[in-house]
């Protein structure tokens, strides 16, 4: 299959997915609302105490907002990815996928179209999250280069989580399964450096929190947004994202191929 064909067909599939989103915006809105809910909950309900706990005496709600915004951004990415698993799984139950298989189109285009659609949704969700944080008084210290870094990390994370959930959606036996299996993605930021520093956790959980992929991603974002990026975290974050993307894409395409071939 030649490359231009694969790109044209993926663009067609992307248009199809965007049309779905435009026609049924409720899912997109729900996925974007979820992280906002967490933002409001943690800033207004827990923010004062947690802020004081993290930054010492004198810290409070606004310090905590600065601390958790990167985690909420990651949750926004994960939340969109959750929706992708559902839309891929429901696609797989439709005869249209069998039709695509009887046509001379690039095989990867069906899944790649979903990934493209999810990236568009992610961009929206992350923009909304930042806008909400800014409205609440969040003032990042990132310079232009840092912002570029933020965009790159968010994009890499979105690619990784989307390919992962595309694969989970393809592998799921039903739409219900597909909506449940990726739920762990929303839990992982809590079991990392997202909401409280890992040093405050008991030994076993702390070990997990420090080594799981979300922690370097959130730490990198936090560093970039504070204008003090850490190369060590960034390398880990990029490495994890690329690893997850590649493994998931290979797995997803393989399972897709096996399922539609029967």
């Amino acid at each position, binding site marked *: 299959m030649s490359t231009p064909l694969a790109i*044209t067909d993926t663009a*067609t599939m992307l248009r199809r997915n965007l*049309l779905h989103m435009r026609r049924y915006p409720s899912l997109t809105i729900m996925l974007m609302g979820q992280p906002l809910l967490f933002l409001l909950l943690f800033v207004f309900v827990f923010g004062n105490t947690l802020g004081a706990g993290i930054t010492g005496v004198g810290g409070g709600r606004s310090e905590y907002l600065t601390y958790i915004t990167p985690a909420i951004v990651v949750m926004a990415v994960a939340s969109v990815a959750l929706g992708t698993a559902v839309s891929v799984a429901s696609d797989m139950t439709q005869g*249209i996928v069998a039709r695509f298989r009887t*046509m001379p189109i690039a095989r990867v285009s069906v899944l790649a179209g979903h990934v493209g659609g999810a990236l568009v949704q992610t961009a929206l969700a992350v923009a909304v999250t930042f806008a909400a944080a800014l409205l609440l008084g969040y003032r990042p210290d990132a310079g232009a280069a840092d912002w570029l870094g933020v965009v790159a990390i968010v994009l890499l994370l979105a690619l990784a989580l989307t390919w992962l959930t595309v694969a989970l959606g393809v592998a799921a036996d039903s739409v219900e399964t597909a909506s449940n299996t990726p739920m762990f993605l929303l839990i992982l930021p809590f079991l990392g450096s997202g909401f409280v520093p890992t040093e405050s956790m008991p030994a076993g959980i702390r070990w997990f929190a420090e080594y799981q992929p979300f922690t370097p991603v959130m730490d990198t974002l936090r560093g970039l947004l504070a204008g003090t990026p850490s190369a060590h975290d960034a390398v880990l974050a990029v490495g994890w994202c690329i690893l997850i993307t590649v493994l998931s894409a290979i797995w997803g395409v393989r399972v897709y191929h096996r399922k539609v*071939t*029967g």
Partner: protein
Amino acid sequence: MTTSSITARGLRKAYGEQVVLDGIDLDVPAGTVLALLGPNGAGKTTTVRILCTLLPPEGGTVTVAGHDLATDGDGIRAAIGVTGQFSAVDPLLTGRENLALMSDLWHLDRTAGRQRAEQLLARLDLVEAADKVASAYSGGMVRRLDLAMTLMSDPQVVFLDEPSTGLDPRSRRTVWEIIEELVSSGVTVLLTTQYLDEADRLADRIALLDGGRIVAEGTPEELKRSVPGGHLRLELADQAALAAAQQALGERARRVGGTLALDVPGDGSVREVREVLDRLEVAGVEVERLEVRTPDLDDVFLALTGHSASQESSEDEEAETDHELEAVR
């Protein structure tokens, strides 16, 4: 017209222990219709899925429109159109958007694609519903949209898996007319059906499939001629006349259920009819009504397989449906 558009030799497929296709040979000349006729579970859908590249065979060779399945799946896919049993439309898009999607995936020129879509919408009676989402369509409308999507690419070879199952009479007639138009424009059609009248009306040749084998193949006329099953049906006025007629005709006359009718096997020739009526006249039996019945495809099926085409073996049916769903997922 003499070249074969679809050729299959020794096609085999099994799901674990269960053999679904046990050596199928097919030849469909270009521009003709072959109907695969058989009960559920006979292997019709599996055959179609293999021929349209959805399912790899376990043995045998296939060429479609001059392309070898083993080496040139893309060549086959570029030449065919497929309408399966399960609707292959995007339920979240409108009819028109579904056709536009096909146009884009076939890389048709934008104007040409739009024209083709409008033609097909008109031809398949979908103009009014064109801007409604397909999930709001009735079963018949979905099937017609499905067919329109299949025809967007102007395929040389069209596979139709039970094209009229579950359709209302009007949609069914529309689908039949479309198939006839396709064939008259030179398209090769392979369709599967459980309906004898559908095969009889549309097919140039019929292959009877049973238990994964082709048990007979020929034109509808050839198949009907190949089996006995013709008879005279005599309707009589009352029990007394019935008894008298039975006595006059002897053992060959069979009673039809609990009615006042008798069936006398025969080929329907004038000589035979005269002979029967002469006997009855001699015996003084008055016949109310007489009907000469020639065998239909159901008789053919019954004679060749020992069971009726419309009678379903539910176990096989479930097995095949399960595999189909599995494959679709």
